[in-house]
């Protein structure tokens, strides 16, 4: 069937079943491979996207639940100023090693600042609890967020 939604600001229409995962549509139909598949169980956060401005695991979203929604992937988010500051903080803190978790991690950091102007370490840990990283041991990621707090980073 025909499914309409908005992807990275553009109205798109695809031929798909309702049961296909948003993750597969993004990667296979649109070749946007910044969104990763890790666990496929909603635990790791590698597949995070924004849907109607909310952070969601795209491995958990069947196309039926994306109908008419506005989906933003890392490719589009990476064009924003909001992203650039997070990228800087991640780079200067050594918060990226293999990079597999990074797109999701960056998006979860952005969502965190939506909730708190200056998240505490505990709030950072809770906010990133749906993101697994096998390389950094998280410390550098927490430091990147601390750096953003220090710089007065704000959600816009």
């Amino acid at each position, binding site marked *: 069937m025909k499914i309409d939604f908005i992807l990275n600001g553009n109205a798109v229409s695809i031929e798909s*079943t*309702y*049961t*296909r*995962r948003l993750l597969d549509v993004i990667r296979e139909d649109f070749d946007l491979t910044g969104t990763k598949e890790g666990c*496929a*169980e*909603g*635990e790791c*956060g590698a597949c*995070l996207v924004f*849907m109607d401005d*909310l*952070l*969601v*695991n795209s*491995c*958990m*979203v*069947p196309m*039926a*639940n994306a*109908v008419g929604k506005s989906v933003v992937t890392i490719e589009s988010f990476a064009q924003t100023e909001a992203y650039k500051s997070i990228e800087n903080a991640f780079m200067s803190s050594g918060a990226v090693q293999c990079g597999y978790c990074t797109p999701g991690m960056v998006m*979860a950091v952005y*969502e*965190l600042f939506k909730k708190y102007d200056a998240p505490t370490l505990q709030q950072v*840990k*809770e*906010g990133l*609890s*749906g993101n697994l990283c096998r390389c950094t041991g998280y410390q550098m990621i927490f430091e990147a967020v601390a750096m953003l707090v220090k710089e007065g980073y704000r959600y816009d």
Partner: protein
Amino acid sequence: MINSYRPTTVEEALQLIHQKRCHIFAGGTDLMIRKRQWQGAERKFTQPVVFINGIDSLKNIEETDTHYIIGALVTQTEMAESHLPEYIRVPYAQMSHPAIRNIATVGGNIVNAASVADSIPILLALDAEVTLQSVEGERTIPLGAFILGKYKTVRKDNELLTYIHIPKKNYNAYYYKKIGQRKASILSKVSVFIVHHKLDEIAITIGAVNPMVIRSVQLEKQFIKDHSIPDLIQGFKAILSGVNDKRSTKDYRETVAINMIKTYLEGVINEL
């Protein structure tokens, strides 16, 4: 090929689930996890799938003089960020993790009826009721009567859970603690929820130990009368029937639950 549908009204959904046995799909955070069943689902599904997330009328939190009325499709994030009392918001804010909370629904957690479902101890302590609707009519029953056991409810195949009713009470204090392997995004090994108004009114539930949430109105009443923690503990011990499983052992769960209740209530009594 299995059919799938996306109704946008309750009536439409009821018609669909009345005609045939269907999978009802809300946020999907339980259904998608049953991955082995789900992968290749487009071919293997044995029942039609009804995606109910397009039914906007079930996405509101409303209140009357006596109750909060929660639509079945309200998400955990919406619960956590609502104007509901803190003793309801906080437990929802501790479920899963931010991105799952944005899609997981209140109704899904209840109908799934896992023994580790974190909302059930809360709603049970608050005497919540659920409304089930079908083309044949509707019924509103206590949550305690809705859940029969682990993954078992009295819901008929043609019934949709539409609303959850939470009575307004004058509780002024609560305790909530969920213990898991990690702090966040993890299923509970054991959880304890206590709401009370001084020691005139109290409700105590223990989640994730027994196949069903533990609550004893009789023990609560006795405790209000005598404030005896040892008797209360003795009473709970008699009804705890935890098991050893991959998440934890029976002993650990029961000891932790008992200790949490004891420590909290001792504090309350000291402050009286």
